[in-house]
């Protein structure tokens, strides 16, 4: 029996937490935050969802299969480092460029950000994968 209030609360909380997680991710390179924490936050949000509803609903709402998210995250991590290898430098060397964004000034973008994105994806995929399967255990 999952309480109605919990479900409602989670419905409201989920988008907020996800937004928060993106915020954490974006600021991570400069302030406390980063891919790990952001990923965990997002995963925690979805875990709440999975507890409030059930894993079948959560899987449906989440859409992406955790396994694919994990694999993609790892691929992103792997590839972010390879860019520098193929441009003649050490693996995982940061390659940076500035992106002028109107209103925000220049934003530094670089392969480490991509790397962090991979971490973000992997962490979400892993945590959800674990939570979902733990919820689906049958006696």
């Amino acid at each position, binding site marked *: 029996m999952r309480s109605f209030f919990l479900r409602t609360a989670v419905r409201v909380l989920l988008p907020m937490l996800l937004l928060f997680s993106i915020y954490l991710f974006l600021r991570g390179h400069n302030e406390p935050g980063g891919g790990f924490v952001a990923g965990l936050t997002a995963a*925690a949000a979805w875990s709440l969802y999975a507890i409030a509803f059930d894993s079948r609903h959560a899987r449906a709402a989440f859409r992406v299969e955790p396994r694919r998210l994990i694999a993609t995250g790892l691929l992103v991590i792997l590839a972010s480092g390879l860019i520098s290898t193929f441009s003649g430098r050490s693996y995982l060397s940061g390659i940076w460029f500035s992106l002028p964004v109107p209103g925000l000034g220049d934003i530094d973008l670089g392969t480490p950000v991509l790397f962090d994105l991979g971490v973000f994806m992997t962490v979400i995929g892993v945590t959800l*994968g674990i939570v979902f399967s733990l919820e689906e255990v049958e006696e």
Partner: protein
Amino acid sequence: MSITVLSGLAGSLLAAPLQRTAPRRAGWLLALLPLGLFIYFLTLLGPVSAGRTLVETLPWAPGLGVEFSFYLDGLGLLMALLVSGIGALVLVYAGGYLEGHPQLGRMYAFLLVFMSAMLGVVLSGHLLTTFLFWELTSISSFLLIGFDHKDETSRKSALQALLVTGGGGLAMLAGLVLLNQAAGTLSIPALLASSPDLLKHPLAGPAAALILLGAFTKSAQFPFHFWLPNAMAAPTPVSAYLHSATMVKAGVFLILRLGPVLGDHPLWTPLVSLTGAVTLLLGAWMALSQTDLKRLLAYSTVSMLGLLTLLGGLRTPLALEAAVVFLFAHALYKGALFMVAGAVDHETGTRDVTRLGGLARRMPQTAAAALPAGLSMAALPPLFGFIAKEVVYEAALESGLFAFAAVFAASAVTVFAAAVIAVEVFWARPAGSPPREPHEAPLALRLGPLVLAGLGLLAGLLPGPLDRALLSPAAAGLVGHPLQPGLALWHGLTPLLAYSALTFAAGALLYLARRPLRRLAAALTAGFGPDRLYDLAYAGVFRLAAWQTGLLQHGTLRYYLNLTVLAATGLVGTVLLLYGGLNMPAAFPGATFYEVLIAALILLAAGFAITTRSRLGAVAALGVVGYGVAAIFLLFGAPDLAMTQFLIESLTVILFVLAFYHLPDFERFSSRRTRLRDMLVAMLAGVLMTVLTLSAVGIQIFPTISSYYAQAALPEAHGRNITNVILVDFRGFDTLGENVVLALAAIGVFALLKFPKRRQP
């Protein structure tokens, strides 16, 4: 030379296919290989008897001092001729003996491998090459003794032979390594040329002793002799080849070979000649009670190997010459007699002399081969055995009464044994009846004994040329100078002749008294001996192993954990105390109220977690510990850590709660005493870690490398949050690995939870 040695290995590959395509002729065809080798070695007689030695060296592992090299001198040539010649006869014999056996092809293959190995032993020019082939003989002998592998006795005997000779081989290896350190080389020509100072090296004695140990096991010297009679479980071709004519001579060969190098060591003569003498007498004594033809011959072989060892220990020129001459004579007659025994077994279905007799009528040609071989063994003229025995007596007399007495006694038994196999079996009135009606053995079984016995006769009639071409050159290499060939059938009426006559008479008396003698000897030896010792040791090893394993690996995790933690704590703690690692810092900044509060909270929560009987309570306490740790991170400037820890802790608690639905409740399994004991162990570990931490925070020998990160983070890595920059950039590779760990965990959880289940009964 390498080709001659390795050709047998190549031939062995052909054996099985050949056996399939030409089952009846395979033995004859394969025998062409050793025959060819035999002829090749014959062509070397000229140069070698002229005093030349042939050397061939291929580098193998020079860094390890290992060479693949060959060295052929008189002794090597003598052995090579025996190995290849008898090898050819044995292959033919095996074809007849095991006709129709499904694994005959393997038998041929193993025999050829063995021949290669044996040639390698006798022709090697480097002791590690010797060792290589030495072990190969052990292995091929193992496979051959256990040929009849469905029979448990065969398997047991094979293993016994392997362990005894293999153990000796290992001792020998250790000895060789020591010898290498003492002499700086293991190359045989170099060793032969080494200076006598070698013997003063402190390692020379141990080296010699260990190498001799190897030689003794291989040549079945007391107290390792027991494997040889047991090896008679092998099919007779194997016994004839390996266990009489060739392999067992490897030890003696090595003793002779190394005599010039290590023989002057004070240890050598007492050790070798005493072992030889004991074996000589023991083998003779044991032979008295045997009624199984093969075991009788085996003990007689043990005895004669003892004789050869004794001669190799005495090391007078005469003794060495006698060793060479006798080795040759023995190989001829013993090989022949083994084959005869096999033929008898094959035709009658038994080897028990008490059930045999008068076979000469049914098996005339076999008897015709047995007679000269037996006479040679009994050292009667005009056979070569007689000449050999004369030289042996001469050498023994020269060395003293004790040696002579021993040789004399054993020789009398040899006469007895010869009489049993050549006379009792073929000419005496049968005491019982064999299981099968005997027929003449087929040609393949007759050929070997006839040829070998004929050679014995020929050699006895014409000892001169043989001596000049083969035996004298062989002995010369051992003595160190050329010898005057002097073998002759007739030396005139010398005391030696009288002794020979006396020996024959004693042996004949033994033969006549054989029935009571057998009973007496059997009664006296029952239940004793190193064979029993081996059995006890063998069983003991298994008992020890089981006991030790039960002690260490007894199945409960907490026992393993206890030991592991204690070992770790003990080791680290001891070193910390011994090496002055303890250093209490003088002063630390105190703690604020909040800090103390958090520390107390963690302590309390941890205490609660381990004492509570509610698993939910324990998990909640665990969460409190985690939050407390997060708070500490936050207080000491690590917000990233605190956030992560906080989130992870929450998730962990969720996971626990989700899982608890499927997990057992807490139960109290351990007794109070166990809990106290575990608590003690845990406290030890805890105290150690506290002390380590305290000692570590007090000292910082070098400043950390972190200041670099503060400088490089923004300009080079474009980030202000240094921790995050380290994670994704400076040490991004750690993070990469860590994400793989995460992925693995997810896969693992999925697999464990979802893998289809089978409920255990």
